């Protein structure tokens, strides 16, 4: 390529500016604006999207291989939670009933119902039913049902009105901030032992004082311990 002549270069130098002066302001605004926009998007994402039921699947009913209705069994028939979730008072895991538990009744009633065909097949063949997991906690969080039940945290505090759920859904997000809400202030949800399995329990007006009494009675651990990392992570 040939070098440009001096005249050419002068022409470039005196050429009209492409960008008008006002572009300086626009550029500045757009820089700030981009940051603001990103922050807003991030904020919205942080405040709304990651807590949305689209992502958390909270409040979304899960289709199961059998249309088992807690509403019918708990709300309607009044079965106790522990009839099926046998280990909820003793163990980390509440327990999903074996096929035999279903057959305790369904070998007597609704014995020909087509809806219950998978149950009968399972019992006959010995092949277990496969339920879809509704409450799926991350593997690095170690939750223990029994200590919550024994220390005055009722089923409905976390699981909601199961007696009104035709198909099971997750009432809460199971996000860490949700766990910490109670771990930082357990008094707000503590209830008397006899109400643990009550689905329609609601905090009384004097929950603040009652909760404090109950915390003392249950010997609830310090908030420092309840919010120590190794209480749930290890």
């Amino acid at each position: 390529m040939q070098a440009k002549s001096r005249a050419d270069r002068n022409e470039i130098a005196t050429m009209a500016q492409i960008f008008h002066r006002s572009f300086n302001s626009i550029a500045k605004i757009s820089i700030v604006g981009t940051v603001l926009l990103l922050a807003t998007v991030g904020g919205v994402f942080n405040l709304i999207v990651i807590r949305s039921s689209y992502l958390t699947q909270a409040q979304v009913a899960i289709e199961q291989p059998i249309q088992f209705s807690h509403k019918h069994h708990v709300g309607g028939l009044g079965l106790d939670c522990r009839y099926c979730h046998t280990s909820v008072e003793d163990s980390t895991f509440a327990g999903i009933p074996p096929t035999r538990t279903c057959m305790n009744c369904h070998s007597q009633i609704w014995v020909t119902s087509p809806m219950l065909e998978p149950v009968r097949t399972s019992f006959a063949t010995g092949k277990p039913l496969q339920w879809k997991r509704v409450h799926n906690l991350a593997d690095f969080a170690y939750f223990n049902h029994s200590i919550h039940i024994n220390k005055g945290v009722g089923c409905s505090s976390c699981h909601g009105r199961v007696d009104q759920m035709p198909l099971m859904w997750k009432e809460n997000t199971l996000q860490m901030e949700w766990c910490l809400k109670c771990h930082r202030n357990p008094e707000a949800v503590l209830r008397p032992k006899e109400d643990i399995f009550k689905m329609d329990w609601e905090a009384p007006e004097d929950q603040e004082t009652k909760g404090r009494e109950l915390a003392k009675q249950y010997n609830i651990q310090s908030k420092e311990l309840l919010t120590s990392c190794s209480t749930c992570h290890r």
Partner: protein
Amino acid sequence: MDNTNQPPKNDLIDLASIRARLSKEQGKVYWQSLEAISGNPQFEELAKQEFPDNTEVWIDPFSRRKFMKIMAASLAFAGAAACNLPTERLIPNEKIIPYVKPPEEIVYGKPLFFATVIPFAGSATGVLVESHMGRPTKIEGNPDHPASLGASDVLGQASILNLYDPDRAQTCSYLREGKSWGAFVGALSEALEARRQKGGEGLRILTRATSSPTLASQMKSILAAFPKAKWHQYEPAISDSTRAGAQLAYGEPVNTIYNLAKANVVVSIGSDFLAQGPAALRYAREFGQRRRSSAEKVLRMYTVESTPTNTGSSSDHRLPLKPSEVAGFAQALASALGVAGVSNSGADNAAYKNWVSALTKELQENKGTSLVVAGSGQPAIVHALAHAMNQTLGNVGNTVSYTDSPEYHPDGFTGYTDSLKELVKDMEAGAVDMLVIVSGNPVYDAPVDLNFAQAMSKVALRIHYSSYYEETSELCHWHVPESHYLESWSDARTFDGTASIVQPLIAPLYPTKSIHEFFAAFTDQKDRTSYEIVRSYWQTQFANDFENVWRKSLHDGVIAGTAYASKTVSLKADAFASASLPKSTGVEIVFAPDPTVYDGRFSNNGWLQELPKPLTKITWDNAVIMGPAMAQRLGVTRTYGNSGGEHGRSYVDMVEIKYQGRTLKAATWILPGHPSDCVTLHLGYGRKKAGRVGNGTGFNAYSLRTSGEPWSGGEVQVVKVNETFEIACPQGQEVLHGREHDILRSSTYEAYKSGKSEEGKESKGHHEEKKEAEESVEHLSMYPEDEHKYPGYAWGMSIDVGNCIGCNACVMACQSENNIPVIGKDQVLRGRHMHWLRIDRYYTDNGHDEPLDNPEAYFQPVPCMQCENAPCEVVCPVNATNHSAEGLNDMVYNRCVGTRYCSNNCPYKVRRFNFLQYADFTTGSLKLLNNPDVTVRSRGVMEKCTYCVQRINYARVEAEKENRSVKDGEILTACQSVCPTEAIVFGNINDKESKVSKLKAEQRNYSMVEDLNTKPRTTYLAALRNPNPELNKKG
């Protein structure tokens, strides 16, 4: 790119100058490695960088470019996952699969413990196995079993990995072609029928040592059906001389049992009885109890040995001698003690003259409360001499008792080597046409002079039954896979004859067969299950009330009342008439079972391969071990990697060993305390068909070992060759920065009880000075005062350095409990080992010997110190490591982003980083092994000891449910629960009555690197030794 090309030219260990340096030291100096004590500035330069950032290459299959590519994908994913998103949308739906009919006793989410025993090398150790929903995950000792007393050993802990080993043989095969069990039974029946007419002539069965009564009765009925068939036994790592020694002394092969609880003085003649042998855990427990500062009379222990062992290193006095001299010592001592018929030739040998006189005096002062123990590797004559000494000292009936042997042998059995020799002779003569090898691997481990493989090739039909398709299987027609002991019913007697039922924890993972089912195929009841076979045997033993006995035995892990009664024996008058001692002939070689992989049967166990050996601390290989004096003479040395941070790479010189016309080229390792003119080579390495883990590790000692001299021999030529070898040794590459005097503390019982300083006179001044300095800066802490309060529990640990015998059981238990991955030799070479708990081995001057040739050794286990002023916590940019309300330094794996700042700031170097994806997320069988209560960590995450916080949480929750506090001793950390000497104690230090508080209140309590004011929750008790002042004189 290639690290193997050229070792760096840095002369780190100049033994002569190290000797000179050590002789100038004032007071006790503790050192870990020759390099560290060398004072070489080059070494300090190499040790500077902790992490190998400037190594040139990433792990081989992942070039850096490929790694970045993979990382890019992961980063995109991580970006989305990092903001604490619920992962519902990001991970596939999980399923819950309940039982159809729930089994008895299982509570979802709660483990069950079952009692069983590990049958091993002709004995058995009782264990309790933790089972999570039918999946065994962890082995603990059984407190009710006489050989365990609640403790567990390295091999027992690691044996669970073998169950899930993906390399196990999984199907029957004929000439490497997969076959069904039915096909094998068909072929076997045909072969047996053909021989039935001739009474089974030509049929030979070769088994390992066994103490199973059911197996013995099965063998009996098979031999009754085939009267001309023969049963042989071979064990490469069980010495025949123990049996021969008893035969020599008493005329019958009695079994010897020691009682250290009653002994005041113990003399070990080449015996590693605290770490090896069927009753080692029991002896270690008794030893530990007699060595506490609270013990009424402290036991004193002497060891005379060649290869440094755990027992020798834990003794008050240790005398390194060549094998031939050890025998000479035994004779001289016996003669001095007045054992009849023993000549006193060689009593004036300068190597042990003063020992003989000191020991004679002490033993005679402790008649009836002393004990002489002969090592299994010693010749029969030494065993006989030990028996005679115990008789003369009146120890029999007090500290020594005799019973029948718990092992079962074929008729006319005289020893394992003899039995194998007879088989080989017959095979060579063509008298064998069908050979059944049961759970042994003689092609690999038979004495080299027998040429087993060649002799075996003359046998028309060869059947091998074992858990792996190994060297012997290669040369056999049929191979039948063996079930793991956690998959099969069986039974076994332990060291004192107590029988136990082996009960399975899980159905066989593959179509494998138990040994009883395998032998049932030889009879007309081919389909009997091992449950039926074992049960029906015991039905004949307990005709009355069988069901109750059976159930109770299964529950307890022992069958009550089956221990053998002790026997009265009398010394043969002519015991030593024809005895001759091994002659000292030039350089000698010692063969010994390896402290990790044993005789090679555990070669494919990654946990054991990666476990640093108690004294050498090397992993993944064995080496020709020699003392510094011999290394100096041969010009053998070693050096470290030349790029910073590779704290694990040692370039060692290689030697060629010429022994009885055979040669072996092997790596060397210089070990202080090893006698000169003597080398040690451990068995179990150099395997070709062990599996993916064990293939090609180390050097095959069996290629030198002969049937005549299986444990030691003379006339060895060791020649240095101009080659080097990379050894992965994760210890000894750190610099103590002037803390050589107090990194560990030791003293004597005498000084301690008389109230003198805990470290003896010399170093007292040093410590007092330091203490004053510490006091003046005490209030200058950078940490906020009383930042943390511990109103509830405050967990703490106390480790008794004096009681630690360095057996490694805690390290293995920690690995099993906490899902610690195996990383392989290449990664250990890069200094990336993952053990949360390591045992630091320190040497120091014993006050009278040359410190390199016979140092005093100490073991100091180092878990996370759980500092109250934790340096790791303040530097974490993402709050992934935090102080808990009970004083633990919590580590939150899911929050860790892998900056490694915490580890850089940790003065104890107890944090471990997942440089690569070490945890195996893909191999199905290995997933079953994981402890479900502990997160399996992935790449890029820092991890460390948490005091087994899963166990703390479990106990706390259980106590809370009952509205009580956690009782002292309710929580046993994994390391604590297996410890045979009870050196590790864990508990609540807020409770002044707890065991750990009381130990911490002892005057000998110290914290490591105290001057940093980290206030560690893990503290140590200074080691106390009980030396004989007469032997403590210099010269």
